[in-house]
Structures are given as C-alpha cells and as structure tokens.
C-alpha cells in the first residue's frame, strides 16, 4: 500500500514538473504548445540512452536531456514564432505527430513500439536511488527547484518582458523588446525543464516506449494547467495532484466497468476543460479575470 502511494506521488511530482514547465509558456507568455509530450518523450529517450550506455548519474542525464530538449524546441519556435500565435499551436501539434512517428519507426535508436527496456537505477553523487522513498525525495526536490526557478524567472525583467509581450506584442516591441527572441528563449527554458521530468520518468518506470508520449499525454498535461489555473505557481501542481488522484479514486467506484475507466477519465478531463472554459476560465486557483492571464 505504501509502495502504491509512493508510486502515485512520484508520478504526481513528475507531472507537476511537466505542468509547471508548460505553464511557464502558456500562463506567462501566452504561447500554447501541444508538443509537451513530445519533449517529455525526447527527454525520456535521451535519458534512457545515456543511462544505458554512458552514465546513470542524474547529474549527467538531466543536463543532457535539458540541452537536447531546448535545442529541439528551436526547430518549432524559430520558424513559427516569427508569424502569428496560432502558427505555434499548429507547428507544435505537427511536431507532436512527427515525434510519435520517429519514436515508433526509428527502431535502431528507440527500439520501435517495444521501446527501450532495462533502464538501470539512477544514481546521485554515487548513491543508488533504488528505494521509492529516495527517488520520491529526489523528484520532489526537482519539482521544488523547477517551481522555484520559474517563479524567480517570472519576477525578473525577463518575466516582465514576457508578460508585456503576452498582453500587447506591438507595445512591447515599440519599447525595444524583441518578441521573437524573448519568446524563443521562453520556449527553450520551458522544454528544458520538461527534460527533467522526462529523465525522472525514464528512471522511475525503467523502460520507455512511444505509448507514453502521445498527443493524449499533451492533453493530459494541458488539462492539469487549465484545471489548476494557468499563470499561477501552485495551480499546475494542484492540477497534477487532482488529475492523478481522480483515476485512483475512480478505481474505488466498483460499479464502473473496469474496461471503460481510462475512457471515463478522459471524458471527465474533457468535460472539465469545456465547462471550466465556459464558466471559470481562470482555473481553480487562478485569478478571477481571465483577461489578465491569457490576454487577447
């Protein structure tokens, strides 16, 4: 039982990192990315490959995955951020689809549908993180660091420029800010932190396959932010907690057919997204006025 709860909490922490990092661009920069699961996947594969062939230290795997993700993000942000905001949504959705094809077809590197198995136990300063407790501790620290860094970033001049661009790009540009560069950097930072989550996930599950990085996963991450509240520090983490506890709670409702549980969950998320957008677009702990958060 304790193992079950610890597993759940580790997943909450990993999802919290994902949601927090995505919230940095959705909530503060007004950039809507549908490719977060793709970056999550790239990081998980990168982490697993490094762990299998080079080093299992988190201090090696995490930085490598962060750099890979940030570099890859340039592929979509450089072309699409030059044009209108909705192009980024489309480009990111396109990347998400291409990424899934690459994960399942580039068999020499990714192992195809079967994925990469036997990812070894993570190490930190030479200490093996074999127990769930120690891994949970590390995940929690990573989540706290991610939330802290993003909190600080939002309150620096960079964060203020970002919010200025979100609210009025033309005005920000006329004050000498370069919206394209600032947004590109923001996306790179967001995906780099997504990389942290990917590596933790690969070590935690100890195998990676394409199934975990579909467009549905992107929806999953997005709904955490939307339910919790975009543009807040704790909203995405609360959202991650709710979204992981919901399926755990559903399994106690024994009258529901087990076969349909996954679909029922998705229906609840989807309905929550629609209803929240109509009645409470700022999310559970978001600011009441959506215009502050998502601008135009």
């Amino acid at each position, binding site marked *: 039982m304790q193992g079950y709860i610890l597993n759940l909490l580790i997943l909450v922490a990993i999802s919290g990192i994902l949601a927090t990092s995505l919230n940095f661009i959705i909530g503060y920069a007004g950039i809507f990315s549908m490719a977060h699961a793709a970056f999550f996947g790239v990081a998980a594969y990168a982490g697993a490959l490094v762990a299998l062939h080079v080093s299992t230290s988190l201090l090696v795997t995490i930085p490598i995955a962060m750099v890979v993700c940030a570099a890859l993000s340039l592929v979509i942000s450089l*072309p699409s951020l030059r044009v209108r905001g909705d192009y980024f949504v489309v*480009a990111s959705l396109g990347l998400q689809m*291409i990424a899934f*094809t690459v994960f399942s077809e580039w068999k020499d590197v990714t192992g195809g549908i079967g994925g990469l198995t036997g990812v070894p136990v993570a190490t930190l300063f030479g200490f093996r993180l074999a127990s769930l407790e120690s891994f949970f501790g590390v995940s929690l620290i990573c989540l706290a660091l991610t939330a802290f860094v993003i909190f600080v970033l939002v309150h620096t001049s960079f964060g203020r420029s970002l919010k200025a661009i979100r609210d009025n790009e033309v005005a920000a540009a006329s004050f000498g800010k370069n919206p394209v560069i600032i947004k590109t950097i923001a996306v790179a930072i967001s995906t780099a932190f997504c990389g942290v989550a990917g590596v933790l996930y690969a070590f935690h599950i100890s195998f990676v396959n394409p199934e975990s990085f579909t467009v549905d996963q992107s929806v999953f991450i997005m709904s955490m932010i939307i339910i919790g509240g975009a543009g807040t520090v704790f909203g995405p983490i609360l959202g991650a907690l709710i979204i992981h506890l919901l399926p755990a709670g559903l399994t106690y409702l024994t009258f529901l057919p087990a076969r349909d549980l996954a*679909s029922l969950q998705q*229906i609840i998320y989807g*309905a929550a997204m629609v209803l929240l*957008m*109509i009645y409470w677009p700022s999310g559970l702990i978001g600011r009441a006025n959506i215009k502050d958060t998502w601008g135009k």
Partner: protein
Amino acid sequence: MILLQLIVDGLQLGALYALMAVGFAIIFGSTRVFHYAHGTTYILVGYLFYWLSDRLGVPWWLAAVLAAAAAVVFGVAIDRFVYRPIQRDEGSFFTVFVASFGVGVVAENLVVIFFGASYVSISTPLSRVHDIGGGVVISWLGIASVVIALALFAFLNWFLGRTDVGVSLRALSENPELIRGFGLNPRKLSQYAFAIGSLMVAPAALVATCVTGLTPSAGHRVVLISIAASIIGGIGSLRGAGFGGLILGLAESLAVWKFSTGWSEAVSFIILFLFILARPSGLFGMRARV
C-alpha cells in the same frame, strides 16, 4: 507504373483532404474560431454511418444522409452551446481552442466506450478496385471522392459568390465590425459557417470510412491535416485550402515510393514546417498577419 498508381491514389486522398480542409477553412476564415472539434465531426459522421448501415441495416444512402445531417447539427450546436457562451465574455483565442479540444476528447472517448478503440470498417462493392489499363487500379469510391469534391467546390463557389448569405460570410471574414454596420448579425452568419463547414467534412468521412476504416482517434489527424492544408494554401483562402489538401494527399501517397509506410504520415507535417519556414503566408494567402 507504380508511380502512376501512387499519383492516382494520391489524387483520391487529396480530394478527401481538400474537403476536410475547405470545411475547416470556411469556419476558421469567417469566425476565427480554431475549431479543433472539426475532427470530432469527422469521427461522428463515420461512426454514425457505420452504426446505421452496418449494425442496424439502414440503406447506405439513408445512413449517409442522416450522418451528414448529424454533422451539420453537431457543428451548429457546438457553436451555439460552447463557443458562443465563451465569446460572450471576451473569450480569447486559446479559451475557445481549449473548449473545442475538450469537446473532441469527450466525443473520442464516448466513441471508444460504445464502439471500442480498434478499427471499424465497412465493406461495400464500391470499394473493390478495377483495372483501368496498364495495371493501374481504381475503385468506384475513389472516383466518387474526386467527383464529390469537385461538385462540392463548384457548389461552394456558387454559394459564396452568388448568394446573399455567401457574400455576407465572405464579408464577415474581412471585417466583422462592418457586418454589424450593415445590419447583419454576425452570430447568425457564424451558424451558417459552421453548418457548411461541417457539411463539407461529411463526404470525406463517409468515403474514408469505407476505403480505409476508422478509429476513434482519427479526429486529431483530420484536424491537423485540415490546419496544415489551410496554412499551406494560405489562411483565409478557400481555394488555397483545397489545393493544400490536394498537395498533402499527393505527397503522402508519393512518400510511400521512397520511404516505408510508417513514415508517410510524417510527410504532411514536414511539408507544413517547410511552408511555415519559407512561406508562412501560404500559396494563395495575403501576408501573414502578426
């Protein structure tokens, strides 16, 4: 010879993509709603047709008409019950998009519960292929998809150019404020846009269900192809969206010539990236507005 066959297949696929894309472009162009649930309309039509004709034994033509009618009802209902309440309090682009996405997620999973997550397909005598000389084969359905697409585009051309509603719809995409000044109701017009846009996707869904089968998650791809084709053609240009769909269909089919089939789906998005990189305004579009 295989090249010729791939071109023939590509044209059939392109005709279907063009229908989806033009439907999306009508809605997006005149209402600026990022209608992600366009893909949902597609799977609803497909599954309704499958359920009526395959499970209940309704004659295929009646099933097709009912499914197409359902598409129109669904499109208009979403506009009225989801988008409009959001837009009433200054809904942003993303708010509407998220809600649209939510509708898609709900519908997809309802379909999974009722029909299962695996492929369904309908076999009709029309999907049997015939040799048209030189080893190139084509089915009646393939011919039908091209004919239907051409007929609907001719209808659309007439509708948008010659009828009052069509002209007002074009005006709506140009300048919504001015529409009000002329005493027309943008809300009402947007219903027409959703009705026609959703109707366009119905034949594509019907033919594709018979030719390649259907899965509940097909909607994501449909909407992606639609958006990609609209961007390639140039946002705001219906003709462009049609051409964009045709190009993507041909490209996807020709990709099989050189790459394994698993990669052919990625081809569309690689073309999309090249367009965003080199010519973001698309083939027929005006300069992309920032």
